[in-house]
């Protein structure tokens, strides 16, 4: 299983990177690249993704904290508490 996933990742890299390379290779001649634009664009794209994931992770954590806190009305002893072994 693990090796299959590893293989999958390798193939993804092998396919996606050259495709991107090809797509972005067409530069308009005459105009200089504006490094502010490309770098900050990259930054903001990554921030969008980071904050989306952050919202999911922190949302999950907050839900876990509310739902599984001891004082929640729906809280019930875990099955491990009977034996006291965990």
């Amino acid at each position, binding site marked *: 299983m693990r090796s299959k996933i590893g293989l999958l990742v390798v193939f993804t890299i092998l396919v996606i990177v050259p495709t991107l390379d090809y797509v972005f290779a067409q530069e308009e001649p005459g105009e200089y690249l504006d490094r502010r634009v490309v770098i900050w664009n990259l930054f903001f794209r990554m921030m969008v993704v980071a904050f989306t994931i952050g919202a999911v992770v*922190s949302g999950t954590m907050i839900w*876990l904290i509310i739902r599984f806190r001891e004082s929640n009305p729906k809280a019930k002893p875990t099955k491990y508490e009977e034996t006291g072994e*965990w």
Partner: protein
Amino acid sequence: MVLELQKPRPIWQIMFSTHHTDIGLLYLITSLAFFFMGGALALAMRIELFLPGPQIIADSMTFNRMFTVHGTTLIFLFILPFASAVGNYFVPIMVRYKDMAYPKLNAIAFWMIPPAGALIWLGFADFTWYAQPPYSVISSPAPAADMWIFGLKILGVSSVLGAINFVVTILKCKHPDLPLSKMPLMAWSFLSSQLIIIVAIPTFAAALLMLLTDRMGVSGFFDPAVGGDPIAYSHLFWFTFHPEVYVLVIPAIGMMYEIIPRFSRKPIFSHSSGVFAFIMLSLVSFASWAHHMYATGMSFTEKTVFMIGTLAAVPASAMHVFNFLATMWGGRIKFATPMMWSIGGIALFFSAGAGGVVNSAMPLDFITHDSYWVVGHFHLFVMGTIAFGSFGYAYYMFPYVTGRMYNEKLGQVHFIFSFVGAVLVFFTQHVLGLFGMPRRVFDYPPFPEWIAMNQIITFGAFLLAIGAAIWLGNFVYSMGKGKPADMEDPFELGGKYYYPYQSKTPHHVGY
């Protein structure tokens, strides 16, 4: 069993003891003392930066010395000894051995720390915690820089001795009935982090010697004026200290692995994925050192290699986070102080990791490198994750160490102050970095955004300081006057604890 205040012993019996809990206690006290000293420096620096222009610190040299000693102290004299304290107390219990494998070596490793700390503090060097040549060779004032070098040298030897001791204790002295695969994850965290130390530290030890001979003028390894290469030092330094980041963070994750299942009243979701992630982290920790050096003029290929090496550390860290959340899922969680620290630590660990992914993306280094973004980023790790995990564990082991309970309310207040403070300080520092403020500056031009953000950060720093003061008061008071803890189950959770008092060995075997 260390219940010193209930059954007092003369102090030298503890100081000259070789028993693992006694040495653990010495480590604990030393590391917490250095935490408050280093924290005081941080607070002074934040007051200085509250407004542009000199405030309370006389000149930039003093300020430079302060951030150098602040960084060195908190990394080498707080976080590492704190992990050793926890390891000394718990690893022998977890592998079911009577003591550490080499008790005398253990004592020697500890007793190297106070002189090293004294060298660093009395010298008060100014070349930042990574002593980058040629500055550290040609520009740094003399006795201070050399004292720092010797201090770090001693600390390096101490770490390696301690690491050998942990590795031998775990691999050779483990009870034969306990297979490695069943060993608690906290013991695993020590095994992996201490193995990293053994592999990584010698490189820096060599670099320090070269730095010293360079300073003495008998060699020119890092001085371009005589044909040396300062970038070689960066490689040697980060080959040790990028893995060192994992040495710091892995035991803190191990501590969370002890606390989170306990307070969720469930076993850990997946023991084997925790083990796998620890092993992965220790391996890939060696694949990313030069991501600290993108701006030194590395080639595109080098940068690509180290970016991939850096990103490779993410899945393993993500597995830990998943493991924590999956453990809490379906549990019955008691929000006592240690659990709050652990959960806060995980939240900030995620933020720090996300920031790290952004850092590793090569072009973004043009924005973030050596700016306050970096300060915010690594403080989220060292303070937000590692120190939070450690503080939680300090609360967790408090009843065991003292036989008494701390004040639960004050513990939670400490957490809330620290969490809000950490978010204010370190998240704002990220933004401040995006606005271009360089790190390690004594003063800054009066741009309105910079001033506003610096003031928010200083405010947050005060919250952290208030929290720390509450903590100190709580512990000092509770040590003597707290209500006696139920040693079978101090947190009223049920289940079994890995508490050293359960060990079969009598008091003070080695003494």
